[in-house]
């Protein structure tokens, strides 16, 4: 019998609502592609270089990897510079699995679809600005 997935299906939504809705927030819609329909996706939103480097998320969404593209919404995000990192948690261990050299063995991707050389890209390369209008980002997991 198949073990039930730890991930829930549907649209992943993280409602931030940290600020009163004074028009100083916007939704970030993320469309994720490039994964197979097994396990889940982990999507992390970072609001600073320090947060990205220390893996302290501003917000995160976990969702079942049921079909490409998969839609995730970070709602009511205050203006600022952000970056998104996502990976396909194929075996549902909540970890980006890597080989003994630290090279990921599960698909991953970043906002702006920037790539690193033998490692992930830096914050600047993957960051984007949130102002008061909604954004849509495509992220290809590889």
């Amino acid at each position: 019998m198949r073990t039930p997935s730890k991930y829930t299906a549907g649209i992943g939504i993280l409602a931030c609502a940290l600020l009163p809705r004074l028009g100083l927030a916007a939704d970030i819609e993320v469309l994720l592609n490039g994964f197979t329909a097994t396990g889940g996706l982990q999507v992390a939103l970072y609001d600073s270089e320090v947060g990205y480097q220390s893996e302290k998320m501003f917000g995160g969404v976990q969702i079942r990897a049921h079909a490409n593209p998969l839609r995730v919404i970070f709602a009511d995000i205050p203006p600022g510079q952000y970056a998104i990192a996502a990976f396909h948690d194929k075996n549902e261990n909540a970890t980006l699995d890597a080989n003994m050299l630290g090279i990921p063995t599960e698909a991953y991707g970043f906002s702006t679809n920037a790539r690193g050389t033998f490692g992930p890209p830096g914050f600047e390369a993957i960051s984007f600005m949130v102002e008061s209008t909604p954004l849509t980002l495509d992220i290809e997991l590889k």
Partner: protein
Amino acid sequence: MRRRDFLQSALALTAVGLINPGRLPAAANQTAPFHTALAEQPWLLGFDTAVAQSFDTPQLTIEGALPPPLRGTFYRNGPAKHVVGALRYQHWFDGDGMVQAFRFSDAGVAHSGRFVQTDKYRRETQAGKPLVWGFGTIPPSAQPPRSPAEINAANINALPHAGRLLALWEAGDAYALDPDTLETQGAYYWSEETAGLPFSAHPRIEPDGALWNFGLAPFRNMLLLYHISPQGHLKQLEAVQLEKSGMVHDFLVTERHLIIVIPPLLFDRERIAAGHSFLDSHVWRPEQGTQVLVFNKSDLSVYRTLELPPSFTFHYGNAWEDGNGTIRFDACRRHDASALFGGLRNVMRGGDFNQGASPHCTLISLDIRKGTAQEDALGGETEFPRVDPRLSGRRNRFVYAVLRLPDNSSVHPLFNAVGRYDMESSRREIFQYPAEVCVEEHIFIPRPGSTAETDGWLMGTGLDIKRKCTQVAVFDADHIADGPLAIARLPYWLPLGFHGNFAASSG
């Protein structure tokens, strides 16, 4: 969480100014200069791109008589797709690998060739253009590699082992191919743990079938050592942290030890971060000398570390221990690595193939007890050394290699002869090919049922630039100077390749 390791390695790169593929000038298109040069220098055909996606000839033309007991398949590999979209690669080592099979049977000799369907090959063929950097080329608008797997061209060696046929590259997964059809089955993992790890193109197989290999991850200063059983199962995998990462292409085994020779061609992370190709991220640092690491096979621990003068070697023939504390091995030793950046790059635009240090047959002795080493030149410009596979890691008397003999009538700058070195008397027996044949690696094949080191055949390919065809020649290994017993010719030419191995027919 392992992601932290990955992030930390990237942060080190970020700190030195990571990721700007556009920073250095991208590869200029070399197609026109190459074809201009080819019109005047027919030998450059060997560096042209393959004219077809696959090759099949059921019956080759044979001159001479093939020895009846010679039955089996000679597999070879080499870069064959040198042009992707509008781009001609700038280095011989960049091209996508094509595996060839020369099948010797009662019906004669058949040939087939197939590109290894690596992830890189499939994606770039579909896109019709290069997508990632190569070993020595940064194509315009292509992206830097996220991992070695993305630039794995599987273009160096073809190795039958434990019923599998593996297409091997230097720094990524082996690719498994169907030994009968050459169709690619996919990246081959010895275990889940080995996915994406470097597995070099020069494994050593012992007489009992046990396979040893290494893999080098220069961006981590990490050396991996593999021990695989004769049945093809991973017995041990060891990761060794190195002080420095040089370019290591081949290694050696003896009955008790593994030997890794690290030349002072050192990987500099800052250079790849600044937008240089993988090759150009290596820097020659002769003051650092050549480091020799000797490992115990029993547990893959470090046994001894020795120093040699600076040198660079692509290939070794064989190593053995004399029982008195000395390890001996032969090397095609170059006094530096300049050929990698010179001739092997120039040739792709039709330039000087011989720019850079040439390889010379050298016997190296390591006195393990005293910690000293000695290098003795045996004479001759040689490459692609091979020995009787029954003596892998055991005392061998003979080494077979291709040679470049000085010849005023030569119509090409490539290897023009094949020879056998007697390591005990330093005598050489040589056959010089006709001037129009560019000679590729020759391997020793034992005669079935025999035991003597001299009892077998030497088999090797060459490109005949007059006939515009690739050939495979078979010699009696004990009478090389008499010339080939037989030559089988293809009705077409193939780009020059690197390494191959023979799988004898069972029964």
